[in-house]
């Protein structure tokens, strides 16, 4: 069951992912594109977000991210609920990622190195600040169906975006149902 779903999820994913040997270069390009957009004072905030999202969409596997954010609860919910949850969550995720980018103000980004960890790859990048450097790590997994690598989590200063969601949803679901959670995320999206 899960495998089938996984397959569907993977097929849904955009085909802009990376091959292992290109990760560094392509990510570097992507990041610089994003930085250029951020620096560009002629674009409205809304347009900036849209442009950045377009770039991110190439490399992020949102469906896997949704599944990971929900953790084991993912397996207990119906397909409809999964779809609905993924929709609202992906929206939320994009919003909050853009929000995090606002932490950026004119620092330089260095692409440090690509490390292999079990079956995953971690691309270390460094945001060079005036006083301190901030590590930002992109975590990739390999989709075995098409042998492409996708980002499934971003660690900023050692804080994992997906893990923060996992903890929140886990706590939320202790007291409430998945439908409540979907409703809650919808409301959050409306407010954003």
């Amino acid at each position: 069951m899960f495998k089938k779903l996984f397959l569907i999820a993977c097929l849904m994913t955009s085909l802009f992912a990376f091959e292992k040997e290109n990760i560094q270069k392509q990510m570097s390009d992507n990041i610089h594109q994003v930085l250029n957009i951020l620096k560009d004072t002629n674009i409205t905030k809304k347009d900036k977000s849209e442009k950045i999202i377009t770039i991110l969409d190439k490399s992020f596997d949102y469906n896997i991210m949704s599944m990971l954010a929900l953790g084991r609860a993912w397996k207990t919910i119906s397909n409809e609920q999964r779809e609905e949850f993924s929709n609202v969550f992906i929206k939320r995720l994009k919003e909050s990622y853009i929000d995090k980018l606002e932490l950026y103000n004119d620092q330089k980004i260095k692409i440090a190195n690509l490390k292999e960890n079990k079956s995953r790859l971690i691309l270390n990048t460094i945001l060079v600040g005036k006083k301190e450097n901030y590590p930002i790590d992109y975590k990739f997994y390999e989709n075995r169906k098409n042998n492409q690598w996708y980002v499934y989590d971003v660690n900023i200063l050692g804080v994992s975006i997906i893990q923060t969601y996992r903890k929140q949803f886990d706590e939320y679901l202790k007291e409430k149902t998945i439908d409540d959670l979907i409703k809650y995320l919808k409301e959050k999206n409306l407010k954003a």
Partner: protein
Amino acid sequence: MIKNFYSKFLFQNPKKVILLVLVLISFLGYYATKLEIDASSETLLLENDKDLAFAREVSKNYETQDMLVVTFTPKEDLLSEDSLNTIKNISDDLLKLKETDSITSVLNVPLLQSPVRPISELVDNVKTIQNSKDLNKQLVKKEFLTSPLYKNSLVSHDFKTTAIVINLKRENRFFTLVEKRNALLKKKNSETASKEELLEYEKVSKEFKQYRDNQRELNNKYIQNVRDVIKKYENKGTLFLGGVNMIATDIISFVKNDLVIYGSTLILLLIAILWIIFREAKWVLLSVLICTLSVIATSGLLGFFNWEVTVISSNFISLQLIITISIVLHLIVRYRELSARYTNSSQSRLVLNTMLSKLNPSFFAIITTIAGFGSLLLSNIQPVINLGWMMSTGIAISLIISFLVFPAILILLKKSKPNKSFENNLHFIEAAINIVKNKGNLILIGSVILIVFSLTGASKLLVENSFISYFKENTEIYKSMKIIDQKLGGTTPLDVIINFDVKDKDNKTKKVETNNSDDMFSSFEDEFNTSSNDAQYWFTSYKMNIISKVHNYLENTNSIGKVQSLATMLKVGKILNEGKDLDSFKLALLYKKLPQEYKRIILDPYIDIDKNQARITMRIVDSDKNLRRDELLKKIKSDLTKIVGDDNVEIRLSNLMVLYNNMLQSLFDSQVRTLGFVILSLFIMFLILFRSFILATIAILANIVPISIVFGIMGWSGIPLDIMTITIAAISIGIGVDDTIHYIHRFKEEFKKDHNYENAMIRSHRTIGFAMVYTSVAVMVGFSILVLSNLIPTIYFGLLTVVVMATILLSAILLLPRLLILFRPFSKI
């Protein structure tokens, strides 16, 4: 046997007896120098209180520090160069003292909104007045006045006064000792302790006391040093030192002053009164000698047994003087009466008759007084229990000393004709006789009115303990407490502790078993599970919502001053985040990146990630006249239970506010219990003493009126029942009963002569009546001096004692004889 003891031993060897007493008392006198006064909050708490154990646990977890607050109202503007320099100099001087851990002031708190900068920049570099040169003072002022972190706590709302908070070094040894002692005490109470453990318990208890004694000394010295520092800067503005620690120190100094000043003035006043009454130096000297010996002996015993004088027992000297004077005056009046009547009797015969005729009533008077004080043993509060023991022991000592020293000295002196000039001019007794004879109904009506007054007053009684109202308005501690209370966020600390995730619900997601076919999923799961308990992921919106809800509720509750919690930080974060709530991710970032020194201020006091717990601290506005502490705590508890009803959390209140309230409520319960107990045990004693049900009832009635008037006055005048005033009832019973017993005893004797109630009353009034008047007047004049004390409860104590003594006298000299005449209880004699 007693007769033989006097005639065959004491009258033969009076000097030896005096010498023996003096030697014994000198031995005790040495221990009297070891008498300790402890007014710390520790002494007022219920040792077996679960809340106390919890409060200590909280204090240990959150590493709370004791603190003192210097309030500074500079002459110049608060942010002027001059004022900031003064704050810096004061801080530097205070940091030189070795007990100071750190100073928090406007100089070194993080400025987050001057100007508002993106969080990314803040994380990079936190500005303070001290570390930045180019600050915009207008913005800084605005931040101090509006930031949830600082408004109404670090600066007053009018921006004239600021707090310089001295954080004291934490004494971990205190907690180590308490834990060790309590663990052993638990075993001891459950009778599972081995011999070694019992010995260990004794050892640890001693060690703990020793430690506290040392700490007290150090604390006193430290506060003196801080005051010296403050003095240096008095030309820069108005400075006060305040804080919960100060309360104890100042109460101790006031109590010590009271002991010395009023103890000695009381003696001088007594000397004057005795001189006016008796006009003979020997009676004055004899009374003063016996009083002094009794006080020294009792103080010595207290020192010997290591019983500390606390706020509650600080009046023990005054009390002992009252009771001793009462014993001695009865003896003097009886002796004078006998020597005037039997002019031909020898001195030894006169003394012997005096002692024998007074032995029985005095003994019973003392036993009943001991019952009155013994009732205090029913309370749960150690200092109140101690007062019970102290007074019971003290009174017994007074009785023994009086019955040894009085005859031993008197037998060495020549007989003298008593100087009755005062008696002859005292028309009070004759007036009382007239009233009892001719206006009996008036007395009864008056008594009924008094009882009604008392009952209605008692229904208005408040059980409150406000420390600020302990002090006169001209004392430094009052002024500082008032400023801290009304301008800098309140005084008495209260915590709300939230435990998250209390019932780990059988979550359906837990039941999911992963199998091998899902190895992709499970490998992800494993990866995330390894880091899921990292501290930075603790800040979930579920928790933040709960903390904020509770925080906001408390902030909008009356009588609550400054509330601080993680929600304070969230509010500031929202301001910095363009009005958007900080999400869990940003909080995790802040947690990871915030420098340790700021974490200590902003996070550590409010969250315990390991325990999955949050703490909301607040201070209660102690000077709020409408504050009803017990009601407030109950309201908070029930409202919060509703607010977080479905959130799977547990809420618990803690800290001094709760502990004092527990103590007060327990005091009130024990007051009700003890009054019942005392009245019952007195009734039984009266039954044993008088062997007549009617007589016992009359005696009880004559006592209930003066006892109840204490509560009537307190209720009507709004004097709350607190740790000081609560002992007055027991004391007034103790004193009141004496008069009743002496009078009835005498009345019985006189009634035997002609079986005529009125004549018996007249004769009793003209003899024992004088002794009762003298005792009461001496005590009333002596106690009126307490009105000059710096401690308000002592003033109340003085005033109420004066009123009670007057009522007791009137009751014993008007109501009691009237009831005797009315019910004729002696028909069978």
